[in-house]
């Protein structure tokens, strides 16, 4: 059976998707687009995992106030991901440390993993989308 075919019961195969977020929010559109993609994936009942590494960890920084730059503050959306059964949020330890951040500085509970552990997780995915 190919990945796109339905099984005998008519159910489409659930794939493991990983969204890798490596950009800071607001300066580019990547962070917001990644959020859209993860919600679309969840709407199609796919197995979604989010990884935050490099400047991507800044997407989860508490206290974002975007009124002054006239952009929508989309950071509260990360707190709503649980409502869509998106619960696999991983942050790379090395990226956090390089930015002097701790898990308490982030607006959602995350699992902090080292690069080596994250690379194993990445290898296990069917699809990895990089933002």
């Amino acid at each position, binding site marked *: 059976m190919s990945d796109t075919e339905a099984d005998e019961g008519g159910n489409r195969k659930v794939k493991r998707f990983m969204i890798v977020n490596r950009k800071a929010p607001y300066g580019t559109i990547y962070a917001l687009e990644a959020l859209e993609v993860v919600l679309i994936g969840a709407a199609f009942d796919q197995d979604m995992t989010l990884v935050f590494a490099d400047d991507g960890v800044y997407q989860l*920084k508490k206290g*974002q106030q975007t009124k002054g730059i006239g952009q929508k503050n989309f950071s509260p959306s990360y707190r709503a991901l649980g409502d869509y059964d998106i619960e696999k949020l991983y942050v790379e330890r090395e990226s956090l440390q*390089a930015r002097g951040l701790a898990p308490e500085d982030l607006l959602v509970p995350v699992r902090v993993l080292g690069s080596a552990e994250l690379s194993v997780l990445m290898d296990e995915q069917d699809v990895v989308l990089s933002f």
Partner: protein
Amino acid sequence: MAVLHTTNKSPLQTRDLESCLRLTRPGCSILLLEDAVYGALKSIEANAKLVDAAKDRRLYVLGPDLAARGFTPEEVIAGIEVVDYGGFVDLVAEHHHVQAWV
């Protein structure tokens, strides 16, 4: 007055700020905006080196961009002045011209 340089990329993802410092002259001004505001934070150890390299220049950071990213003026390295959009306009008016390091 001298040149106002602006940089808008995170110093952890690109080397724009480093190039800006290498290729600019003492006495100029550098404004960090958009993702470059991370370059003004005390919390990033590597920033100390950048600021040290810029001690003969005036450094500014755009406040609204800092706030959007969840940081306050208290988290900015001493010696870097936080300006608002009005301050940005004043800087542009005060300087001979503006050079953007995009």
